[in-house]
């Protein structure tokens, strides 16, 4: 069963490979403006991790305020400066923290950091391609993202603060600097950063789709692709169709802000004077925003689903249960994700009939999601499960996805949404189902593919400690939020002590904040493990997890071009684990049926 010795002779190859390439590329070409998809993937990963710590830190700041609303925070003055006034956090800065936490986490970490990293890294490697269809566009995609990051990061340090109108930036609040300071320069920079971000996403997306359609190696038909690739493929399509709509919304908002148009503004009296804008509709912006915004949550979660499917199959040593149903449900989710956006708007005054339609469509999306969960559980059933850290995160992902997904059935019901809209119930729901779950998918991916990225293993023990602390604190943070949400506790409240209805939840909020701090602290274990293992981790073998997919047939550290010799040929689907009659409990995709006559199923005899 154990096959650690397989790799020894190939290691030598790899040393050659690396050596060859040292000569023809200088430092900048190799590590900075690299066209190699693997380097670009790592660049996305590093940026993603950086942003995750920034976003996490912001959340700790506002959790301090929420957990201890009466406390004085003079000790934060060295970091926040003028935003601490007489020991109190500035209420507008609190809103800015919430806004930037959301923007950073949704777009910069879980979109760019997750799908940017793994789409880039895995698409060519798992398809058997030398690189992306256009390496140059790929590089451009990262550097435009980098530029966008710089703009967004600088906006954190503006004197008037970063954007503060919520990550959904609903106008008129986000359009009028008179309404809130953050809608001044901070909002302008937000819009510029997002416009750049969208350009980066489109460049990346076109590339992913083209690569998947055109650059599959010999024998790699669409139905022999690993589920990761299916997930990235559909994610890229969603992004390509949805992001331009956000772009148009951002553009119209820029016009309203700077050129006196009235797309979203109408009948407004603010700061002592009536504005001349008439005929605009703030609801129009919400339609445009959520037309992206809802597919966006699937853009975040689908790559995680793909990664988790792959890791669960590999470590259960079983084929993924219902491969075609898994693809079908991904397609179902993708299609439906475009027709459910208005469930974010049940109580905006939208026509109630529209509410009924969107409730119907929203609840349908529970069906493919449920199928996925059942199939993951069925894959575990009678497996021979290896608890690698990646596998722990995959199990954690499924658990969180169930917990968070089920409450979606409540929120998708327009009648129930009346009470729960914009309360902590919503916060708990989406943090579990797309926040924490997507993070778990990302960790799952990092722990699983780290050996292929850096040629070394992450420390498994530290990984387990990291997993358990994170998993427990995620539940400790978000479970109690359901309780206060059911009672109607509203989101984005700087302080709630003025309301008799809400001021009974002080203990619960303190508890949540403590759990959040614990969870954030645990991430430094990961950071240490990550950096330490890049340089000092145990050396990886070629295929440390005994996996079937193509990336594990490359050398330990694949060079530019991925495979030293000719591209591999694919003969079978990627999930031939524990096939009865086979010598090993895995048969890589590159093994022809003629070599596995003892294990071939009746319908596979023809391919021998």
């Amino acid at each position, binding site marked *: 069963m154990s096959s*650690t010795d397989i790799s020894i002779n190939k290691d030598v190859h790899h040393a050659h490979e690396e050596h060859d390439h040292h000569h023809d590329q200088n430092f900048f070409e190799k590590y900075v403006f690299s066209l190699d998809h693997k380097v670009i993937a790592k660049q996305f990963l590093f940026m993603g991790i950086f942003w995750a710590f920034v976003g996490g830190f912001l959340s700790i700041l506002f959790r301090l305020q929420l957990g201890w609303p009466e406390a004085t925070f003079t000790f934060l003055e060295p970091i926040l400066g003028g935003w601490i006034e007489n020991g109190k956090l500035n209420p507008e800065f609190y809103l800015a923290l919430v806004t930037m936490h959301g923007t950073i986490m949704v777009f910069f970490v879980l979109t760019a950091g997750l799908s940017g990293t793994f789409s880039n890294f895995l698409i060519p490697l798992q398809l058997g391609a030398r690189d992306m269809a256009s390496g140059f566009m790929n590089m451009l995609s990262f550097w435009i993202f980098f530029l966008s990051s710089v703009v967004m990061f600088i906006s954190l340090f503006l004197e008037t603060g970063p954007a503060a109108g919520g990550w959904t930036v609903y106008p008129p609040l986000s359009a009028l600097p008179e309404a809130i300071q953050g809608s001044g320069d901070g909002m302008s920079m937000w819009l510029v950063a997002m416009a750049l971000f969208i350009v980066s996403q489109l460049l990346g997306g076109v590339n992913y789709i083209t690569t998947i359609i055109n650059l599959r190696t010999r024998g790699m038909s669409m139905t022999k692709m690993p589920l990761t690739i299916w997930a990235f493929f559909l994610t890229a399509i969603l992004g390509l169709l949805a992001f331009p709509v956000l772009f148009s919304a951002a553009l119209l908002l820029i016009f309203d802000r700077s050129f006196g148009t009235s797309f979203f503004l109408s009948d407004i009296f*603010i700061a002592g004077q009536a504005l001349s804008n008439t005929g605009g509709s703030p609801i129009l912006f919400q339609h445009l925003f959520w037309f992206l915004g809802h597919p966006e949550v699937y853009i975040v979660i689908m790559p995680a689903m793909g990664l988790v499917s792959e890791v669960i199959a590999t470590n259960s040593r079983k084929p993924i249960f219902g491969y075609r149903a898994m693809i079908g449900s991904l397609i179902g989710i993708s299609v439906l994700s475009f027709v459910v956006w208005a469930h974010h708007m049940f109580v905006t005054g939208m026509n109630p009939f529209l509410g009924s339609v969107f409730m119907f469509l929203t609840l349908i999306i*529970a069906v493919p999601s449920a199928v996925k969960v059942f199939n993951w559980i069925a894959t575990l059933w009678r497996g021979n499960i290896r608890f690698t850290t990646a596998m722990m995160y995959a199990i954690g992902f499924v658990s969180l996805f169930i917990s968070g997904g089920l409450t979606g059935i409540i929120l998708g019901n327009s009648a129930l949404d009346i009470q729960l809209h914009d309360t902590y119930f919503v916060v708990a729901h989406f943090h579990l189902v797309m926040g924490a779950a997507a993070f778990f998918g990302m960790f799952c991916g990092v722990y699983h593919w780290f050996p292929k990225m850096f040629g070394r293993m992450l420390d498994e*023990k530290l990984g387990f400690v990291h997993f358990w602390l994170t998993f427990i604190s995620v539940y400790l943070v978000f479970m109690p939020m359901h*309780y206060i949400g059911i009672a109607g506790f509203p989101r984005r409240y700087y302080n709630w002590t003025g309301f008799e209805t809400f001021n009974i939840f002080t203990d619960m909020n303190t508890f949540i904040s403590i759990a959040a701090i614990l969870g954030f602290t645990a991430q430094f274990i990961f950071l240490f493990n990550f950096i330490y293992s890049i340089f000092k981790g145990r050396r990886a073998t070629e295929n440390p997890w005994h996996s079937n997919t193509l990336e594990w047939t490359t050398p330990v550290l694949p060079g530019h071009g991925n495979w030293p010799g000719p591209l591999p040929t694919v003969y079978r689907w990627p999930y031939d684990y524990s096939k009865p009659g086979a010598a090993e409990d895995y048969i890589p995709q590159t093994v022809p049926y003629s070599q596995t006559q003892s294990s071939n199923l009746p319908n596979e005899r023809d391919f021998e």
Partner: protein
Amino acid sequence: MITIAIGLSIVLLLVILFLLFRIGTLSSIFRGSSERAAGTTKISNRVNGTLLLLFLILGGAAFAWSFADAWDEMNLPLGSVHGEWTDNLFWTTMIIIGIVFIITQVLLFLYSYKYQHQDDKRAYYYPHNNKLEIIWTMIPAVVMAVLVFGGWKTWTNITSAAPEDAVVVEVMGKQFNWMVRYPGADGKLGVAKHTLIDATNEMGVDFSDPNAMDDFMPREIHVPKGKPVLLKIRSRDVIHSVFMPHFRLKMDAVPGMPTKFWFVPTKTTNEMANETGNPDFKYELACTEICGRGHFAMRFIVVVDEPEDYEAWLADQTPFVEQNPQVLAKLSTKASKELVAEAHSEEKAEVVKTEL
């Protein structure tokens, strides 16, 4: 001094942790567990498997306990007719998803524990089963259909047109408080325009409209128990949202697009005070759409009266124009000015015409 001591002890702690980590790594090399394929070592597998099972049991118990403990707090006292419908629907849905939650989580952790790696075992090659897959696609589909139907019926009832005789209250959101207006004896609200807003006339009511003459603007919302109440909601600056948690009521206040929500209160403030045992009980109105610095402080009081008390309160109110006669005075001067201006422009127009 103290900060240095704290800093030093943190550094020391980190060093100790790092040493422990190194010792662990080295000992695993000596034990030979690093030679095995990842995830197949016995101890680590057993520890993680057991922890998963423990997480299921202890986590489940903690969840059940905390849920029961928070039960009273999360069930806000209910004061409206439609709230009963949505609360019932909510807890019915909760039971359904609760059952699914328990089944799936138990299977997930149990299978993970039960089927952990053993050297002499092999996984069961089981790629698909169409029958099974059709069954577990159909079941959620049917359950969803039932829930959609229940939700749709409730939603249509709640959002149906308000009865003709509903008490009308206009609620306007602004940064950062609420203002309300009652139509007065004629039952009609006067027209309002954002261009007419000034320091006195904060709701921008057009007092040249005769319907506005008896409109009054109280500091609390009063509504009669058992009668339908129609809230006409608008905003004058950014989006706000009217949220009355006890009535299970929420509707955004959108500038440029008036919205509405109607409900029937079922318990007076006094009855609620008796029921909750809190003599100071007050129905509250909160804002739930981020609207700026004071978003968290847009509190307004709603009072539910017995119908006769409500009538008495109504009779007590004085129209806005009586309280602030200057708005009418201003109106007359403004009107005459406008007339003059109009006359001027007419003259000009004639001049232009003749010139042409």
